[in-house]
């Protein structure tokens, strides 16, 4: 057995996972073999079925010539004379992809060597048929990451994360990636261990790996002693997490008896399904970018999403952030391509530039406001004019709805404090309803360190004195002006950062649901 290999990275979501490595980057060209011959047979039959189904779907919109080609390919795939030899090879122990490739290559060779040009040209059809099934086979294996697998690769797509069943464990280990990426946020809120910034690995590791996402590292090809040590660390973490669960049901109070409000951050209306509303003080941040997936959501879709969360919260406050697209969150048909997107047309800048799209969201929010304790905040506010224009659009849409007799209500309007200009000179915003410090963006702008860049991750710390000083000054301004100030960045749920945030004067934090218990436990240890 070769030497174990330790890679050091940055924890993006605390926890431990022991499991087989699953290579994210090889998915497109690699077929994951199955455990039994029967599974291999089933995989090939399924892949042939998928390929046939796709061709049939294509026929629906094809013209006559194209339909002729597609029908020919379907007839081929449905012919036992083509699939029989491949399935027979699988039955005798060949992997499905090898068997299919060999069977088809033999057919293709027959066409290629024909003395008739028309016949030779059909080789391209046969290659197409071969590759469609191979594609279906590899996709099939994409879904078939073993239970409890550690996903390993450059980066992982949010859809991939969402498609995966994490109930039997597993984790994420990325060579690049970022603790501030959307997948990292999702991983924290679902309690999936995740490490980023592991860098390149010398070989292509396979087999069981140990993911320590508390300290940020992974062990490949672990020795027996390492597995044992890892399991001790893992169970100690589980015990600490379990102890924290005791705090989950109680209001958050510091050692000195100071009450702290702890709300939750959510990204999708369905996130609240797994949260007991009595364990939190409301929703401190509901992101709305995820509603803006591949298409722009209509007013009714948005209204239903907001209303669902408001009704779940009962009378507790729900702070919804208007769409914060752009930056690292592109939305087709809405955001623009830019050389430096974090400093470009994103957040409220984009919404104000696309009033027809923003108006849809505003109307949905105004209508939803009657169903609970809604507050609305604008992201990326840099100057007062932006807030005023956004507030004016709310007033305008409200008047429009009222004129049509639509039930609506104007919610309190606040701003995210995340652009340094707003944090340094908050007096420009003395008349807004509330401040919510977005510590992720505030930190990246103050430290000039992109949050999606692992190579500058060491600079991206909310605990740098420059960032903490700004937070303290915003908190002090809020107290003096009687403007509520909360914090909704990742730092709010980080036990290592919580003491510094409370010392900076914050009394209102919003955290990922999976961090509620640990955050409350950490608060109980602070003596402010």
């Amino acid at each position: 057995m070769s030497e174990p290999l330790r890679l050091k990275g940055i924890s993006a979501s605390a926890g431990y996972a022991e499991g087989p490595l699953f290579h994210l980057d090889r998915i497109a060209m690699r077929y994951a073999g199955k455990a039994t011959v029967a599974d291999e047979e089933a995989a090939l039959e399924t892949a042939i079925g998928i390929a046939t189904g796709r061709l049939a779907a294509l026929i629906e919109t094809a013209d006559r010539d194209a339909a002729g080609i597609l029908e020919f390919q379907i007839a081929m795939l449905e012919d036992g004379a083509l699939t029989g030899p491949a399935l027979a090879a699988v039955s005798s122990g060949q992997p499905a992809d090898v068997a299919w490739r060999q069977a088809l290559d033999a057919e293709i060779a027959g066409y290629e060597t024909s003395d008739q040009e028309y016949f030779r040209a059909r080789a391209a059809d046969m290659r197409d048929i071969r590759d469609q099934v191979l594609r279906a086979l590899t996709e099939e294996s994409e879904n078939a990451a073993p239970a409890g697998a550690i996903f390993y690769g450059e980066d992982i797509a949010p859809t991939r994360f969402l498609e995966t069943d994490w109930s039997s464990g597993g984790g994420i280990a990325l060579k690049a990636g970022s603790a501030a990426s959307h997948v990292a946020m999702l991983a924290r809120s679902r309690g999936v261990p995740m490490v980023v910034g592991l860098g390149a690995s010398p070989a292509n590791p396979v087999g069981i790996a140990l993911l320590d996402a508390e300290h940020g590292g992974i062990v490949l090809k672990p020795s027996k002693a390492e597995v044992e040590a890892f399991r001790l660390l893992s169970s100690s973490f589980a015990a600490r997490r379990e102890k924290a669960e005791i705090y989950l049901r109680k209001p958050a109070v510091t050692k000195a008896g100071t009450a702290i409000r702890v709300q939750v951050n959510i990204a999708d209306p369905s996130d609240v399904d797994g949260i007991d509303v009595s364990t939190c003080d409301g929703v401190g941040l509901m992101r709305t970018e995820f509603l803006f997936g591949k298409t722009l959501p209509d007013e009714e879709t948005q209204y239903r999403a907001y209303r669902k969360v408001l009704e779940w919260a009962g009378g507790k406050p729900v702070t919804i952030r208007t769409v914060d697209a752009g930056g690292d969150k592109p939305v087709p048909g809405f955001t623009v391509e830019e050389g430096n997107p974090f400093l470009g047309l994103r957040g409220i800048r984009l919404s104000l530039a696309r009033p027809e799209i923003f108006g849809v969201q505003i109307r949905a929010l105004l209508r939803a406001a009657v169903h609970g304790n809604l507050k609305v905040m604008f992201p990326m506010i840099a100057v007062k004019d932006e807030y005023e224009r956004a507030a004016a659009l709310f007033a305008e849409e409200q008047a429009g709805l009222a004129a049509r007799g639509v039930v609506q209500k104007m919610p309190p309007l606040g701003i995210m404090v995340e652009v340094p200009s707003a944090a340094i000179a908050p007096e420009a915003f003395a008349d807004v309803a509330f401040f919510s410090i977005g510590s992720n963006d505030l930190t990246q702008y103050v430290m000039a360190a992109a949050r999606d860049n692992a190579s500058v991750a060491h600079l991206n710390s909310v605990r740098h004195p420059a960032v903490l000083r700004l937070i303290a000054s915003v908190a002090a301004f809020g107290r003096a002006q009687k403007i509520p100030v909360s914090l909704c960045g990742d730092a709010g749920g980080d036990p290592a950062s919580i003491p510094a945030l409370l010392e900076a004067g914050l009394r209102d934090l919003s955290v990922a649901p999976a961090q509620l218990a640990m955050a409350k436990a950490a608060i109980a240890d602070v003596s402010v």
Partner: protein
Amino acid sequence: MSASAEATVLITHEVGLHARPSVKFTKLAKTFTAEVEVALAANGPWFDAKSIVKVMAAKAPKGTMLHIRARGDGAGEAVGALVELVRRDFDEGADHVRTA
């Protein structure tokens, strides 16, 4: 004791018994329970007329005399229908000529 039938027909289709014509040919053959085979010569080799892979492998270009034989229930109807299909130029009409 089972029925059997045999016939020959000239392929006039521009590309021969290939691709789209062979799809139609095998689909029609499959509607009969009889065992149906094709060949380019009276003495074979014979290919399964219900398998597009086999029919394509017969490599029958335009101008070929196609031999069709069937055995079993409805053998006569099967051969008759398939001969008719080839004679009708696979219902493709004049626009079947493709440059692709």
